[in-house]
């Protein structure tokens, strides 16, 4: 009897006490920094936004910097001083040019050390697209169209391409099953088995046997110096809805005037490529599925800003309609 009592006491005290306790830790304190955000592309005026970092626990809007002086240099020669517009945005009336290097130098009463950043605008990408029937269908017969993207002269142009798919005015409604509504949508998933792709943002669909890429296709670094790269895309979807897939093969030739399936290719500067990849990594790890992936930590987002945070990044883009080009 005494043995039984002691054993019972031992079991219960062990199990009851070894519970999980949740408690707070002090957050690390970081010095406030000026954040510079600017995208340079030959189709838009040069714009720079200045904000300030805020503590993690603060949910107020980011404080904007309104009294800074931003000088703009082109290939080392000062060409402009940006004027303040609103909401922390500073504008120039100039558009950046392909292959030119732009530097910004920021000073001001609230800025202890001058902030600077620079980037070189890449040339526009060279590529072609076409569509064809899917030859080998996988387990589930959801796809009957394949899109081919062929990228040229990567080796000459220091190409860092990112590829996206846009369906324009197509009868697909991401909120439900109202297929009469026409919407313009960027594909959230792009399905491909192409070996030339970087699968950092991919998950593998076991049942269908291909990788699903989130939002963009990024070329693997190993193919960055190739003269020619082919990417085969076998499908894509707007959202987690199995019934709403890429345009079907039979409808692509019969679209109404406003409807289109387009491929956009962004030739990014090395800095923008790193920034995009790190932000996408952080997004896939922590936000894409609603809850962070188990044991995934925060990702260090790339920055090329000296004495501050953020990015000055450049790209040149080109768009082509897929539906107009049937593969031979």
């Amino acid at each position, binding site marked *: 009897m005494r043995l039984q009592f002691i054993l019972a006491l031992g079991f219960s005290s062990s199990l009851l006490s070894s519970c999980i306790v949740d408690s707070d*830790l002090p957050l690390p304190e970081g010095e406030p920094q000026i*954040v510079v955000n600017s995208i340079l592309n030959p189709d838009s005026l040069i714009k720079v936004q200045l904000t300030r970092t805020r503590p993690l626990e603060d*949910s107020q809007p980011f404080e904007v910097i309104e009294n800074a002086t931003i000088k703009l240099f082109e290939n080392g020669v000062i060409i402009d001083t940006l004027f303040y517009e609103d909401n922390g945005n500073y504008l120039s009336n100039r558009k950046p040019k392909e292959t030119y290097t732009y530097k910004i130098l920021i000073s001001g009463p609230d800025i202890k050390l001058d902030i600077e950043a620079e980037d070189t605008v890449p040339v526009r990408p060279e590529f072609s697209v076409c569509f064809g029937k899917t030859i080998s269908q996988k387990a*589930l017969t959801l796809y009957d169209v394949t899109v081919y993207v062929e990228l040229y002269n990567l080796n000459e142009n220091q190409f860092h391409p990112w590829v996206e798919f846009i369906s324009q005015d197509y009868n697909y409604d991401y909120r439900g099953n109202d297929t009469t509504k026409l919407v313009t*949508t960027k594909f959230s998933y792009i399905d491909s088995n192409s070996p030339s792709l970087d699968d950092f943002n991919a998950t593998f669909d076991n049942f269908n*046997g291909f990788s699903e890429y989130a939002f963009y296709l990024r070329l693997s670094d190993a193919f960055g110096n190739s003269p020619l790269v082919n990417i085969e895309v076998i499908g894509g979807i707007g959202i987690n809805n199995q019934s709403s897939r890429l345009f079907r093969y039979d409808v692509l030739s019969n679209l109404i005037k406003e409807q289109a399936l387009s491929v956009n290719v962004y030739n990014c500067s090395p800095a923008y490529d790193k920034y995009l990849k790190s932000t996408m990594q952080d997004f896939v790890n922590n936000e894409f599925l609603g809850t962070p992936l188990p044991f995934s930590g925060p990702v260090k987002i790339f920055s090329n800003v000296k004495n501050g945070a953020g990015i000055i990044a450049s790209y040149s883009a080109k768009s082509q309609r897929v539906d107009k080009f049937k593969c031979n």
Partner: protein
Amino acid sequence: MLHVKLSLWLVLILLTLSSSLAQQYTLSGYVSDSDSGEKIVGANISISSLKKGTITNEYGYYTINLPIDSIVVEFITLGYEKEFARIALTKNTRLDIELKFSNILQELTVTPDDENDIVSSTQMSVHRIPAQVIRKSTMLLGESDALKTLQLLPGVKSGNEGFAGIYIRGGTPDQNLILLDGAPVYNVNHLFGFLSTFNTDAVKDVVLYKGGVPARYGNRLSSVLDISLKEGNAKTTQGTFSVSPLAGRYTLEGPVKKNVSSYIISIRRAWLDAFSAVLFPGDQKTAYSFYDFNFKYNHTINAGNKITFGVYTGRDKFYSRFKSGSEKSEYSFRWGNAAYLVRWNKIFNPRVFGTFLGYQSNYNFIQESKTISDLIRQYRGVKSKITDRSIQADFEYDGGSKSKIRFGSKLSFLGFAPEVQQITGSNIDTVLNKEFQEKSLNFELYIEQDLKLNPNLFLNVGLREAVYAVQKKNYSILQPRVSLTYLLSKATSMKASFNRMGQFLHLLTNSSIGFPTDLWVPSTNKTAPETSVQYALGLSHRMTDRNLEASVEVYYKTMSNLLEYRDGANYLFGSKNWEDKVIYGEGSSYGAEFFVNKKKGIVTGWVGYTLSYTDRKFAEINEGKKFPFKYDRRHDISVYANYNIRPQKSFSMVFVLASGNLATIPVNSYQGLLPPNYSLTPRFQSGSYLNDFVNQELVIERNNYRLPLYHRLDLNYQTSKTTKRNNTRTWIFSIYNVYSRLNPFFLYQSEGRLKKLTLFPITPSVSYKLDF
């Protein structure tokens, strides 16, 4: 390079030949326990008149060369009564000795050749932990654990709170060669890592090499943990039965033929599934269980030949079952090791002792999900497996009082099958990743020599070469090892060591937790083997009058071709091939270790302190800049003390105080940029995710945040009593984390706050053991 290799081999063989010319008579034999016949490892054999001595090897065998003389030989080991033998040595003589167990603590005469002596042994950075110490140190939920005891030694760090993984001198758990009776064990975790797979009732001896690893060991970068199981009582049948809140254990050992053959069977099983049956009585059931089983049979064929068969197997199973109407579904994880070995110890002549070992060691992991109903029949299974089939031969040659030589070779056939997936559904039946199954061949060769260069200078020099063939590619790693000891006085010595190590296996892991999903993968034509170089310098001092040993060691280690998952790549979101998910980098580690050990007396124990620095460098992490390793704990103090109140009552305590681990925590948030056309995504247009990409967290660098100081105190009280039937019953009362320090197990952010999860606040337990 070939010339360098040939020269190294040639020098070593010449050294060996030159030292083997001495001619003397040999005294040899086994030293064993008089009650059980269990062979005693590390027993001292000394001849005071000649100032000579040796110790028994890992099989309890000794050999010593002596001049023709009438001598008195002393046999001494801790916990046993001294034995003397008077011999007139006129020929090679075999002398097997049995020592009687004693509770009386006697002085130990230390001889210059005593490997256990911290001062005169050429081996540095080594710890031998007897099973009795393991049974009295840290206990979590009533279970003692060999690896958790090792975490109390300097240079050995624990990973997360409560886990059994060990990180040695900046290395990772996969860089530790863990041998169970000579066969490697690939997954040492039960219960997702809270407990190791080694049943302490069956463990006889544990030896850990942190550096200066002798050439007879290879294929891991950081350390060797050599665990020997008991041989089984060759004289009488005895057993142990014990229960703890976590598991029950039963061990039975005895002779098949007295003094000729013996067996030991040890079984442990967790009963968490019994609790869950009570907690989840309905259609939804979640349960966990594990077991392990050890069996060993020894047979002495004759005075010169002994054969051993061993089996170790252990499995864990975690599952959730649901039932809804006619539909049943189950989700389960199962994993486990199995090792089978046969060993033949042969005494070729009194000077040559040979060991032939053949083994197969497997680890496999199976994750399954099944759904069965009238309409659906779906199955998805992910299986990973590593199989190691090896044969090896090891020889010890006693080349006289100034030299001992070991040499041998090993041939291994390794099979890897990472993440093989089988999917069966209404319109699919396929197996994926079959193409990533690999087979490789590993051949290793070594020679090692202990030399006494002069009365004060001892040298252990060795060379190991490993050749590995995979995917039509061959790798070869030459691994020189040198340890040097110089006696500054009878009580003080200075030591130095250098070793190069290589490793053809890599463990891909997402966490320190020891998940069964961690993948063992081979070196391939794309993935080069890992290598390391370590230098160590030490000072050892013995204070005989106080029964104390003290040592201080400094070390510097570099590691290359380390593997890590890329950011964002993990098991749950697997892509096509593991090699697409990994990046390669390097690491370094340096530090100083202080150790004071008291092996004898009413109070025994040790104090260890480590000051260390460990970092990593990967091109794709932290912008290619060096960053501190997650377990770069700057300071680490461990205290273990055992107070033998009476022979049958003991009280022990463990105190650990260490710098916290490191984590990557953002310091601020800032405005980011939306990627091109992101506003056209359905996700953005739905209005629910407008903060995607815009609200970024500013990470300054990898592992920038040090967690709060880690500390805890464990207490353990054991009381034994002999029953009327001459059995011994023992009650063990233990408290883990006495003052309930909330040490973090896991960090996460929630609503702008940093939170920690603590798994083990104060955790008392009671265990019961019956020895019969």
